[in-house]
């Protein structure tokens, strides 16, 4: 993949591999990434089990500042769900394969399960809980409701955040393009037709 392709890719994933590795390298100096990347722990020597030092991280979530003292291994997704009790962002795979955890980082859609919370210092994070203005739903939320763009609702926060990001990216206009660019968000219930209708309605509004 050349650089320009990789940057395009970053539009979708919110980070490039280069950036990701850089970020991980910085943020995780001295921390233990083993369980995140592999379950083959039983093959490691015991001294690999050194504890992670907690760090203080300040996150900007839905416009309000949250300061957390965290194990450096905590993903952004788990920080939201387990530390901040913001359970709107869902965990479907924890591996960047389903999109249920999609949030907006500085307006771009990212898989929050692939980001360590400590990498997000200084990032404006918008989650599903931050889209509505008080009682007034975000147009994308209203369109999902109107078009029945879900069934069980578990993929829905990720679909909606991803759709908001997609519209903002401004380059997916045909059905084909929208489908392609929403393909990182799996809906096992199969509400795909309705999700497409919802996105088109918002995009053309």
């Amino acid at each position, binding site marked *: 993949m050349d650089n320009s392709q990789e940057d395009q890719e970053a539009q979708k994933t919110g980070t490039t591999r280069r950036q990701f590795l850089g970020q991980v390298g910085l943020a995780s100096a001295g921390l*233990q990434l*083993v*369980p995140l990347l*592999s379950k083959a*722990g*039983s093959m*490691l020597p*015991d001294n690999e*089990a050194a*504890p992670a030092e907690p760090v203080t991280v300040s996150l900007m979530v839905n416009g309000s500042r949250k300061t957390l003292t965290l*194990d450096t*291994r*905590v993903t952004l997704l*788990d920080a939201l769900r*387990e530390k901040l*009790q*913001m*359970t709107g962002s*869902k*965990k*479907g*795979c*924890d*591996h960047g*394969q*389903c999109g*249920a955890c999609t949030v907006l980082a500085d307006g771009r859609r990212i898989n929050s399960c692939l980001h360590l919370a400590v990498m997000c210092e200084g990032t404006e994070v918008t*989650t*599903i809980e931050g889209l*509505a203005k008080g009682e007034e739903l975000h147009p994308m*939320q*209203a369109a*999902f*409701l109107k078009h*029945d763009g*879900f*069934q*069980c*609702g*578990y*993929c*829905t*926060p990720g679909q*909606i955040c991803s759709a908001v990001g997609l519209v903002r990216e401004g380059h997916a206009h045909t059905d084909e393009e929208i*489908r*392609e660019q*929403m*393909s*990182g*968000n*799996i*809906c*096992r*219930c*199969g*509400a*795909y*037709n*309705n*999700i497409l209708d919802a996105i088109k309605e918002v995009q053309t509004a």
Partner: protein
Amino acid sequence: MNELTGKPIDRVDGRLKVTGGATYAAEFPVKNVAYGVTVTSTITKGRIKNIDTGAAGKMPGVLGIMTSENCMQLHFPAGSDPGAGKYAEKDLLPLQNDRVFYGGQHIAVVVAETFEQAEHAAAMVKVEYAEQTPVVGFEKNALTAYKPASGLGGAETQVKRGDADAAMQTAAVKTDATYTTPVFSHNAMEPHASLAVWEGDQLTVYDATQSVMGVKALLSAMLGVPAEKVRVIAHYIGGGFGSKGFTWANPFLAAMAARQFNRPVKIALARQQVYSTAGRRTQTSQKIALGADRSGKLLAVKHATISETSFVDEFVETAGVATPMLYSSPNVDVSHELVRLNRGTPCPMRAPGESVGTYSLEVAMDELAEKLNIDPLQLRLINHADTEEQKKKQFSEKSLKECYERGAKAIGWSNCPAKPGLTKEGRYLVGYGMATATYPANRSASSAKATLFADGHAEILCGTQDIGTGTYTIATQIAADAFGLPVDKVTVKLGDSMYPKGAQSGGSQVTASVGPPIRAAALGAVDKLITIAIADPGSPLHNQKREDIITGNGRIFLKDDANKGEPLVAVLSRKGLDKIEADAKTNVSTRPSLPAPAPAGSPEAKTEEESKTNMAVQEDENTDRSAYAFHSFGAQFVKVLVDPDLGTIKVDKIVGVMDIGKVMNLKTAVNQIKGGMIFGLGMALMENLQYDPNNGRIVTRDLVQYLVPVHADIPEIEVQFIDRPDLYISPLGARGIGEIGVTGMAAAIANAVYNATGKRIRDLPITPDKLIV
């Protein structure tokens, strides 16, 4: 009547779902919760010689490690009735001994202050095994197949009518082929999760389940805790598709660990663990032989299925279940055999039996049509079953011919190339295919409570659950109609075992099962109110006749003089009552036998007593159903485009016309059917859970390797309904719709691919490699 049922209203729980406010099992804000991460076996068969928890146990934040050495003993579950809770692996109760029956089996639980600590420590647990040679490979072990005595809930697995072998001899045109389907994984977006909290001897489990009542019954039986001390909550469930219908280890591990370490414990399975420990669809090999006369009339149908199960329970995928009734034929022979492998136990997955069974049967019909040189749709019409020939019953309602007709028109069936592999659109080969869809209409005994409050709002309580099917919404519509109230005045509460016993979300039975008691309870509450009004000199309806009074717009009034009446709440406030409530149980079941009456003195027995004077219940229960067979039907049509060089398949259009009785909510109904069709598309073209041929462990255990349909795979789908109420199944007229959408779809796609390419792929999924060789 029926002003709201049928209307395509928005989901009543939609707002919560689009704002992130719907709370799933692992998300309940419980104080002081500890995290459990399970360690799973890395061998496929053998014994655990030793689990070294030394290093792991000393890691920061670890509260303890639960293994078979130190965990509490469980009791064997009493029954295996899926309605009353079915533990999925009866001979492998969690952590009860040192035996390993499959790869990825739970063998220990690490509990720690944080998820990260638990996950890290779980990786540090060292397990020594005494490995044995596992039984791996389905085809390799086909010779060990045995005939199971029965299927789920006592379902018949060997069915004969006439003499199929003799008839086959005389048939002028025959097909005989074997069709194979791989293991499929439900892959509900929410991985199984359980959060257990003990308060003294009272246990609450927040669980991702399709049956709060089933999990409650099992927790009580297996943990040895009185049923009234167990509460199971599942307000929202992130999909199930059958994987959360049987109960797996997760709620037990959470409850056991919570007791052992004296902390609330949350166990949310990793996606990878779901593949091995939480069910799947079995692999099948189905041999189908069809014999017909020259006019196309079927003379004999033979359908022999071999599937596989585990060494710790027996689950039969009844692939031939629909075969004896789907088409008219004097001679039928359906059989099922099982092979035991060292794999996790299979379980129902969306249309268990029919989904894979209609794939093979409906492709076989296509093959027969070709040999007969008859249009495949015409062949279905020639063999249309006007009655249920195996049970010798009438269908309660069947409009399948209309489904065929409307579907053919919508897809443009007349464009279907008569000769396969010759027609192109641009550079793509184009093909059309069709198949019949079918699923039985199930119903089981259920109860509900309805309450009308003095402030004018009403509430329904029912111990069923909404797994995404729309039950909250449909129940609201039903209750609103019965109360004569607008939708926003009715609150439906589900997913709590404290509520009256409702049906499990399986077998497409929820609407047909809980709809009638919800309606009856609401009507019962209104009836009580009317009785009060008639007796009350202060009411404008004083001394009026009961039968002259009706409900609507939040009022009770005279049928012939709408002005003579009063608001429902006026009756309550005049009497100083803050509410009026009614319980109802409809003891109607499509199963052969009715459940035993509730134990005397139990709340359920009280409900049964009250239901004896509930007119709606009585009418429903007194309907004579003995002459009828209850089935939904449909017609699936597909157009595909196949790249002749690459073999890639693009489904270009899907049309399904469904005959499912009354449509309760067009919006949620269309969505359900489309979801089923997409399940079928996944089956047909990509899904395949693969096991290592040597060690038997699952290879494709994530969403990169186990492909499910994504946005880019999905064309425009058109769904139509016949929408003809089936008043024999229930007064509401609705049969279930959760499963029928998947049936026939894989066959319709396979037939379309054949029509496009001339290549008959009898082995799912149909991947490009199979087309270009």
